[in-house]
């Protein structure tokens, strides 16, 4: 015994109880309110297939209480209804069908235009299956992968038999969303199930996984199983679907009244949980298992006052206690208010009413075949047991609720049909039938039968069954936690200097897929260190590639791949390169280093390394060149030593010549610095004398520390991306991605100097030639900004206007420390066949087009 809390009061439960059985024993009959019309809904299927018992359990909405086991102190509440599910004044919508017909959101609240925004808010508040807990962080779910020969989905009799048989051929995983047999009433079925379970569990090749729900069958094959706290990705060679069948959902007036119940629900209450499902019952039986359910209901002490039975089964009914037996009778109508009060049975056109509080329906089985229908043709997915059974020939029914989840009635389907939606797939989309939590388990077949009975345009006359709508995952409600399980959306790359940055108090953030220092506390001081003294920056994030190979192939690749002059680049020299795609658009940039006659070293942007690697390999194949590419991005780190004293600092740590004569700008040398073998490259991104030290990653920390130690004489402080933002802006250097757009060409960026159009061919040349005949419609410019906000950076992203028309945008803006004024970069469009010189930003600052670089335009400091 235990107790759960239901809407503020204690409800006792017994061992083995589900939440639904405990609440039913306690007298609850209205389990939920329907989504649209707020109709009362009672316990119905008892197998987790219908939406009627969905409640919020311990803060989690839409939990299937008929399959959720009770736990001590569990908090349970119904989601729908105002002020509560019992009174629910919103039930008035049930009499407003004319205002909210099927597809009403396409037809009503259209005019005036604000009507929908108001209506939407009201409707959203009045409907739904509960609220997600807004303040509770999702628990992290464990993910694991299982590789087996066969996965069997469903551990009923057919599933366990299939698992046993498959075990002879390899490994088998058999799963079930519940516990084996726990919802089956005592009897021959449970006996058989328990015997099979023992047999299967004894097999070494079989793994049994209970309380794990198969969400779908994906290409691969791949079957994700959601458990309580974990998600198991099963990768099988073969899938056996043994998910059984639901009891058929019958459609007639009053079919959704509390008290109308499928046979399995009644039998589980009576036989498993010891709860009498009603006092006076009418029972309708057309299946074998229905006979067992009838007996179970009788044994629980329910007074059966009438039994409707098919003629074929009439002679197999129990001997006594059946009330009036109506052979070949049908349930014509259920009547009641807040719950069932009477049932009308009809035979041969004659109807008779029976007063009762329970109607038990076992009218046929509807295969639970959604998972099987997800498989692609030819995939190794087989279906066994009731899931493979032919459904009974059935009529759609009349004047009742077809879709319990979405409150769609036969009248709604008829209206949609009359509006021209004459196919089960489009009826589904228009009416949302089968699109609720049950995913068509209850209503899918009724929808198809309706469409066929009216002449579904997609139905072949010779097809054995009514066409079902497309089955898609997930088949069962699944938490967002499960969907997110194992998804490591953020993958941070770290340089070998990461721990040193952390120890130095760096503010780290993401840039180009890496965790990088943005500043070490005072970015202005870092900026000044670069401009006036010496500073370090961790640039190990740059893409780094060695290219070599047979003869001149590597040189030919470089020449054909990049738009700059290559032939005149001597070994030991470097050159800035743009990467263009075939359309002539700038994809990336970097430095090209000629190491030897046929050996090259290339750097790319930090975020562009992967793309560069793929591009190099792609063009090697396309050009059929014998070139090898070695991506050293992970293997080598890089430190930029920048500032007027950077050479002095390095000369303290190396015996190799790095003076201006031995190593002019732009050039490189291999040198040993602080005992670490480095490739030393002269660079100019920050506009000062600077050396990039490319080095083995494992030696990075000692090299950095040696530089810091030796740099104390010049009050060295390292700089991060915040300082770099201004340093490069003062030089007018663009940040690809921030300052550029995907269709920027070198000409638009005012970087035609990086392109040698006299070369016979390079990637993108033909496109550039064509575009050169068109003239420039947009170009990137330097801006001087006056009269703007106190924080110049706020101008970034603002539109640039001429005469009130937007003709451009500010892409970078900072207050220049070196120049003492606000500067920026941006793009502008051509206006009246010319580019404007004076513009206004969105906030009113004046933007004057000026040439770049802003700082040291002659480049003397950089070349020093």
């Amino acid at each position, binding site marked *: 015994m235990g107790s759960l809390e239901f809407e503020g009061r204690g409800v006792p439960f017994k061992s083995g109880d589900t939440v639904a059985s405990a609440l039913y024993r306690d007298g609850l009959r209205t389990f939920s309110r329907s989504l649209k019309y707020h109709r009362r809904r009672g316990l119905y299927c008892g197998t987790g297939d219908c939406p009627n018992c969905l409640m919020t359990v311990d803060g989690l909405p839409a939990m299937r209480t008929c399959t959720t086991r009770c736990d001590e102190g569990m908090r349970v509440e119904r989601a729908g209804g105002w002020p509560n599910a019992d009174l629910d004044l919103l039930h008035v919508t049930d009499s407003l069908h004319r205002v909210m017909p099927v597809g009403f959101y396409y037809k009503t609240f259209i005019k005036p235009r604000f009507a929908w925004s108001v209506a939407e808010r009201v409707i959203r508040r009045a409907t739904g299956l509960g609220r997600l807990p807004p303040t509770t962080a999702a628990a992290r779910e464990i993910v694991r992968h299982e590789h087996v020969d066969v996965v069997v989905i469903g551990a009923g009799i057919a599933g366990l038999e299939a698992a046993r048989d498959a075990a002879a051929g390899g490994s088998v995983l058999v799963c079930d969303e519940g516990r084996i047999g726990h919802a089956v009433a005592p009897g021959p079925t449970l006996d058989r199930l328990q015997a099979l379970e023992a047999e299967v569990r004894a097999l070494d090749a079989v793994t049994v996984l209970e309380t794990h729900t198969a969400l779908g069958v994906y290409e691969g094959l791949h079957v994700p199983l959601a458990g309580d706290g974990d998600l198991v990705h099963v990768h099988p060679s073969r899938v056996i679907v043994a998910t059984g069948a639901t009891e058929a959902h019958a459609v007639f007036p009053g079919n959704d009244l509390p008290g109308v119940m499928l046979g399995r629900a009644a039998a589980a209450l009576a036989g498993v949980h010891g709860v009498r499902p009603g006092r006076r019952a009418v029972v309708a039986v057309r299946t074998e298992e229905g006979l067992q359910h009838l007996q179970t209901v009788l044994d629980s002490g329910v007074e059966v006052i009438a039994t409707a039975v098919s003629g074929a089964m009439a002679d197999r009914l129990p001997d006594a206690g059946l009330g009036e037996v109506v052979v070949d009778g049908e349930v014509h109508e259920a009547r009641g208010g807040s719950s069932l009060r009477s049932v009308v049975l009809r035979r041969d056109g004659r109807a008779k009413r029976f007063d009762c509080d329970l109607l038990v329906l076992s009218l046929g089985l509807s295969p639970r075949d959604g998972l099987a229908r997800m498989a692609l043709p030819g995939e190794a997915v087989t279906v066994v047991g009731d899931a493979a059974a032919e459904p009974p020939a059935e009529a759609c029914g009349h004047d009742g609720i077809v879709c319990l989840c979405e409150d769609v009635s036969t009248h709604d389907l008829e209206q949609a049909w009359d509006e021209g939606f004459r196919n089960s797939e489009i009826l589904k989309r228009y009416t949302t039938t089968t699109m609720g939590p049950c995913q068509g388990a209850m209503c899918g077949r009724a929808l198809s039968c309706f469409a066929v009975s009216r002449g579904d345009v997609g139905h072949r006359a010779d097809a054995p069954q009514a066409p079902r709508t497309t089955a898609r995952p997930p088949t069962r409600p699944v938490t967002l936690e499960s969907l997110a399980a194992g998804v490591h959306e953020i993958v941070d790359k770290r340089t070998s200097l990461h721990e040193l940055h952390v120890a130095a108090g760096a503010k780290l953030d993401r840039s180009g897929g890496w965790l990088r220092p943005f500043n070490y506390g005072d970015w202005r001081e870092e900026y000044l260190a670069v401009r006036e003294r010496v500073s370090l920056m961790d640039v190990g994030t740059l893409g780094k590639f060695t290219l*070599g190979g047979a003869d001149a192939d590597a040189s030919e690749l470089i020449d054909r791949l990049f738009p700059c002059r290559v032939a005149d680049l001597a070994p030991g020299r470097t050159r800035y390169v743009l990467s263009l795609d075939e359309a002539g658009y700038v994809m990336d940039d970097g430095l090209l280093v000629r190491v030897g006659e046929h050996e090259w070293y290339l750097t790319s942007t930090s975020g562009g390394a992967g793309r560069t690697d793929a591009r190099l390999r792609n063009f090697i194949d396309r050009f059929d060149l014998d070139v090898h590419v070695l991506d050293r991005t992970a293997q080598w780190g890089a430190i930029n030593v920048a500032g007027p004293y950077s050479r002095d600092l390095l000369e303290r740590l190396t015996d190799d010549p790095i003076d201006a004569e031995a190593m002019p700008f732009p050039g490189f040398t291999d040198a040993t610095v602080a005992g670490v073998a480095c490739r030393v490259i002269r660079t100019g991104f920050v506009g000062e004398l600077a050396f990039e030290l490319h080095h083995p990653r494992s030696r990075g920390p000692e090299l950095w520390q040696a530089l810091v130690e030796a740099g104390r004489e010049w009050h060295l402080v390292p700089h991060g991306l915040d300082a770099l933002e201004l340093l490069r802006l003062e030089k007018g250097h663009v940040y690809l991605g921030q300052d550029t757009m995907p269709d920027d060409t070198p000409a638009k960026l005012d970087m035609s100097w990086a392109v040698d159009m006299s070369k016979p061919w390079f990637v993108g040349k033909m496109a550039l030639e064509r575009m050169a005949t068109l003239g420039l419609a947009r170009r990137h410019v330097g801006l001087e900004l006056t009269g703007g906000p106190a924080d110049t950076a706020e101008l970034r992203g603002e539109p640039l206007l001429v005469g009130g028309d937007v003709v451009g945008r500010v892409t970078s803006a900072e207050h220049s420390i070196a120049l003492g004024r606000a500067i920026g970069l941006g793009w502008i469009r051509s206006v009246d066949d010319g580019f404007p010189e004076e513009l206004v930003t969105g906030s009113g600052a004046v933007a004057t087009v000026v040439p770049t670089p802003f700082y040291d335009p002659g480049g003397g400091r950089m070349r020093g």
Partner: protein
Amino acid sequence: MAELRPTSSPVVVVVLASSEACDRIVAPEGAIAMRIAPREMLLVGSADAGAEVLRGALDEPSAIVDDVTDGWAMFQLTGDDAREAFARVCELELPDGGWVQGEVARAGAKVIVEPGGLTILVPAMLGAHVEERIRADAAELLAP
């Protein structure tokens, strides 16, 4: 339980050479040869199987042979629950021996399977990420 340990003991050598030359390469004693592309091999093993040895054995001047150990973060995952811990972060089906490649916690990885456990190689800049993910996702399986 399982145990996860960073290791730096294997040497990783890359060989970029013609496919014919790659075909001729025989992994030295104690090394595993991974043919990761028609003209690209990784050899993972002891220092005796290092780059110099291979370069000497490879009669192809244009080939690139280099010790790239620095480019890899390596972990050994051992113990009875090693495979289960691995399955928390990777969907690869592990063979009984040899090596496989694929994604481990979204990092491109090579995985060597030996009787004593697994050796996982990922690009060095993702080593911390992968180690953190394994320790978080397989926490209850790992020895502290």
